[in-house]
C-alpha cells in the first residue's frame, strides 16, 4: 500500500494545473484516444495527446517536458472539435510546450520551438510580421552556411513569390510596421510584468 502511494502521486498534475495554460482540464481526459487518431501529424508524436495526459497524471514529469511531442501540434483543432469531453487539447499542447520551454526543459534543437520563438520576436519587434525576415531567420537559425544552403535550395520558391508580387526584397530594410511601436512595446512589457505578478503574488 505504502509503495503504491510513493509511486503514484499527482504532484505533477497539480503543477500542470497551476502553471500550464488550460492545464486544469488534463484531469478530465477519459483516454478514448480520438485526439491521437485525429491528429494530422499523429504518427510523428512519440507520445500522442491521450498518452501525454496519462503521463501527466502518472507524474512522468521529465518524460513529458523533455518530449518533442507537443511541438508536433499544427494547431488544426481537429482534436478539439472531436473530443467527446470538449477539452481544449490544442491549447493544452501549446501550454505544455510553452511551459517546457519556460523551464528550459524543451529539446534544444526543436525546429518548431525555434520557429515559435522567432515568430513572436518578429511580430512584436514592430507590431507586424516581417515575412522575409521571418523566413530568412529560420533558414539562418542553424548558422550562416546552413542558411545559404537552405536559401539556395528554396530559391525557386522565393523568386516565384517575388515575381508574383508576394515577397519583396525591400522588406529586409523597410517592412510593414505599427506607427505606435512604442505603445506596443510598453503594453507588452506591462503584460509580462502582470504575468509575473500573478505567478508570484508575494514578490
Amino acid at each position, binding site marked *: 500500500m505504502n509503495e503504491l502511494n510513493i509511486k503514484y502521486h499527482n504532484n505533477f498534475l497539480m503543477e500542470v494545473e497551476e502553471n500550464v495554460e488550460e492545464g486544469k482540464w488534463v484531469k478530465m481526459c477519459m483516454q478514448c484516444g480520438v485526439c491521437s487518431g485525429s491528429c494530422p501529424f499523429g504518427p510523428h508524436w512519440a507520445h500522442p495527446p491521450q498518452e501525454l495526459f496519462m503521463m501527466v497524471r502518472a507524474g512522468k514529469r521529465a518524460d513529458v517536458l523533455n518530449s518533442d511531442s507537443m511541438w508536433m501540434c499544427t494547431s488544426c483543432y481537429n482534436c478539439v472539435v472531436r473530443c467527446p469531453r470538449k477539452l481544449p487539447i490544442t491549447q493544452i499542447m501549446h501550454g505544455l510546450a510553452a511551459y517546457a520551454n519556460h523551464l528550459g526543459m524543451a529539446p534544444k534543437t526543436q525546429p518548431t520551438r525555434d520557429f515559435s520563438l522567432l515568430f513572436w520576436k518578429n511580430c512584436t519587434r514592430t507590431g507586424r510580421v516581417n515575412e522575409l525576415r521571418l523566413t530568412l531567420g529560420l533558414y539562418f537559425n542553424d548558422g550562416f552556411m546552413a542558411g545559404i544552403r537552405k536559401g539556395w535550395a528554396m530559391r525557386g520558391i522565393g523568386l516565384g513569390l517575388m515575381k*508574383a*508580387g508576394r515577397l519583396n526584397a525591400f522588406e529586409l530594410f523597410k517592412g510593414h510596421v505599427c506607427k505606435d511601436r512604442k505603445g506596443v512595446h510598453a503594453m507588452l512589457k506591462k503584460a509580462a510584468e502582470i504575468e509575473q505578478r500573478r505567478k508570484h503574488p508575494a514578490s
Partner: protein
Amino acid sequence: MARKEYAFYPGCSSQLRASAANYLTSTNSICKTLDIRMTAIPDWNCCGASISYAGGGELSRLVMNARNFALSENHLPGQDIVATCAACWLGAREAKHKLETDAQLLADANEALQEAGLNYSGKTKVRHMVEVLIEDFGYAELARPVVKPLAGIKFAGYVGCQTNRPFGIAGESFENPKYLDRLIETVGGEAAAGYEQKVTCCGGALAFSETEKSLKQIKEIVESAYDHGADMIVTPCALCQANVEVYQSEVNKKYGTKLAMPVTYYSQLMTVAYGGTAKEAGLGGHIIQPAKLQEAANNPTPGKQ
C-alpha cells in the same frame, strides 16, 4: 454611404507586397461590387497567430488582440471587426472569448492597454469575411452581381482548418462544411463533389519548421483534387493557399510527382464572376497559374461590347 460598413483587420499576410497580397486585392474588388466599405483598423497589429505560443505568455498574446479591439472601438465605433485571414480571425475570436469569460483577464488586459493609451470595453464583434458574405448578404444576394458565370470550371473547395475549427461558420459541420461549395456554385462554377481532403491540415506554420512532414499533407490535398477532376483548388485561408500552392514543387522533388494544381481564393472567383479583370482578381499573384480563371477573366463579358 455604403450598403455595409466594417472595421477591416487585413493581417500581416494580406498587406501590399506580402504573401497574400492578392487576397487583399480580390477582397477589395468584391467589396466594391457589393458596396461594402471596409476601413482598416488604424495602426492594427499582428494577432500573434497560433504559432507564437512559446514566445509570448497568455496575457501578452491576448493584449496583442485586445489592442486591435480597442483601436477599432475608438476609431470605428459600432462596426464589426472583419478578418480575411483564418489565423487572424481565430486569434481574435479566441482572445475575445477569453476576455468575455474571465473578468480578471479583462482587467489585466486593460491595465496593459493603458500603457498604450487604450481601453477595451468588450463590445466589438469579430467576424470572418465569409461570415459577412453568407450571413449579412446570403447566397442569393451574392449571385446577383454575377455577369460571367464560371461555367466549365471545376473547383476543389479546400476549407482547411482554422476557418472551420474550433469556431467555424455557424450552421456548418466540422467534418464536411458546405459553404465553400455553395459559394463556388453561386458564381456558376462546379464544386468537386466528395473532395475528401476538404478539411485536412496542410501543416500550417509547421510547413516552415517540419517541411517534410507537411509535404505529405500537401501531396494528399492536391492529389485528391486531381482525382476528382478539379481544374483548381479554392480556399478561404491565406496560409492554406500559400502552403498548398508554393510547396508543390517540393512535393514533386521529394515524391517524383508532377503536381501543378493552381490554388485560388474564393474572392478571386467572385471577382472574375462579377466581371472583374485578371488584375482586379489578383490573378497575377500565382506561382502555378490558374489558367482557366485567367481565361475567364480575359474573355469579354457576355452581352457587353
